[in-house]
């Protein structure tokens, strides 16, 4: 069994235990191995990027790590223990396509807080703060689903952050956004990171990877092709797949 944790030296927190670890993680569906024997660690305080071609299994991996689907082999550990409700509450996820409740912008945030047992004045204050942070303050009363794509994505991010997660999953949060909207999302993610939130983000954008990545996991066809600090992977890609991607060649040419 490959042990990818060995490939991921994390200088500033090498002693710190992994926030989240996958051990021999596999997922099969429809007779296909979508995730094949992944062993990896997500370290606290790091921004881990997941990259790889369409259909490589990036979204499936996020769902597994977030506990939305159950692995068919191996397991996901949260601070060394199996994923449970408390672990779920310490995580948040922004999906590739934002799912907005049929309510106002503000009510979408309040809902997330209510689920966490936060009500009354504290809820109102936290929701308003989160909206201002996402620069959606003047849209508080509008129906969430009439917002533009970029605004909805910002709201989805604000809703995830208002839960004060320790680990935030993001599935291609900027893939359909223009540069200004992308910038706004990246700023929000980096601000959260600066407050101590660990980040796991799927992206296709190499520029974004350079701007935001500390570590990278490179997926290819359900296998973990590469894992380690982004700088190391950029400097010396180990596999043909990563090399091709860095050089901008088509993955399928492999």
């Amino acid at each position, binding site marked *: 069994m490959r042990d990818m944790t060995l490939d991921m030296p994390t200088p500033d927190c090498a002693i710190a235990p992994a926030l989240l670890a996958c051990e021999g993680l596999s997922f099969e569906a429809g007779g296909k191995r979508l995730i094949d024997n992944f062993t990896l660690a997500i370290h606290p305080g790091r921004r881990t990027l997941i990259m790889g071609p369409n259909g490589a299994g990036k979204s499936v991996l996020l769902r597994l790590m977030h506990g939305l689907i159950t692995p068919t082999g191996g397991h996901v550990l949260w601070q060394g223990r199996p994923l449970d409700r408390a672990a779920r509450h310490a995580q948040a996820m922004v999906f590739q396509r934002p799912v907005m409740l049929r*309510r106002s912008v503000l009510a979408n945030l309040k*809902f997330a807080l*209510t*689920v966490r047992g936060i009500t009354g004045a504290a809820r109102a204050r936290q929701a308003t703060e989160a909206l201002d942070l996402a620069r959606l303050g003047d849209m508080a009363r509008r*129906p969430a689903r009439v917002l533009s794509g970029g605004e909805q994505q910002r709201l989805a991010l604000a809703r995830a952050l208002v839960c004060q997660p320790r680990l935030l999953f993001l599935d291609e949060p900027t893939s359909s956004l223009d540069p200004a909207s992308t910038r706004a999302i990246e700023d929000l993610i980096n601000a959260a990171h600066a407050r101590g939130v660990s980040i796991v983000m799927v992206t296709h954008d190499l520029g974004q990877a350079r701007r935001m990545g500390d570590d990278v996991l490179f997926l290819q066809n359900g296998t973990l092709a590469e894992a380690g600090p982004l700088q190391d992977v950029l400097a010396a890609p180990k596999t043909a797949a990563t090399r091709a991607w860095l050089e901008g060649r088509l993955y399928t040419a492999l």
Partner: protein
Amino acid sequence: MFSLTDILGEAFGLILTWDRNLSEIVMLSLRVTLSAVVISCLIGLPLGAVVGAFRFPGRGLVTVLLNTLMGLPPVVVGLVVYLMLSASGPLGVLQLLYTPGAMIIAQTILVTPIVAALTKQVVEDLHGEYAEQFASLGVGAFDRITALLWDARYSLLTVALAGFGRAVAEVGAVLIVGGNINHVTRVMTTTIALETSKGNLELALALGLLLLSIAVIVNAAVMALRASAVRAAYA
């Protein structure tokens, strides 16, 4: 022989002067049907939401049952409620037979499966969209149901209106359990049936026109609801 224009004129006269006999019948109709719809919603909305949002053993059976009950023949419901409530029936002691209470019970039995089955469909579709987000946020079972019901509010209002439309136009069940007693259990539909057979056509026609207007109002309300839901992207 009768003159259609004369009868139509008299019918409008009854409506415009809000004839006491007519108003009594209309108000009882609305009271019975609204009560039945409210009770049906209290049972059918949560029931449909639970069946729509959760997987559990027997879910398929419940769905088949609800869909079957949706098409219950009203006269059969009337007969069964009659047997239950009649003096020698199991609920005879309640002495509800030939009262508005009996009519409310019969209409509730007719409308609850409609509300539940339609709610199930609406909630199931919405849950398909929300399920992962709910799981991610860690939303518990109770909060899920209430959130789905609230977010489907526009569709569910049209469900309630559909139930109202069915109940207010129903004759068979209320005729059997209500008995069409003057000043006690006469509603629009049963009065139309009786007065037409007696040749008292102006009252029958007046009630028919009102029943039609109610149908038009209900449909207009459904359309207006849908339009405002679409405007707010809440549909």
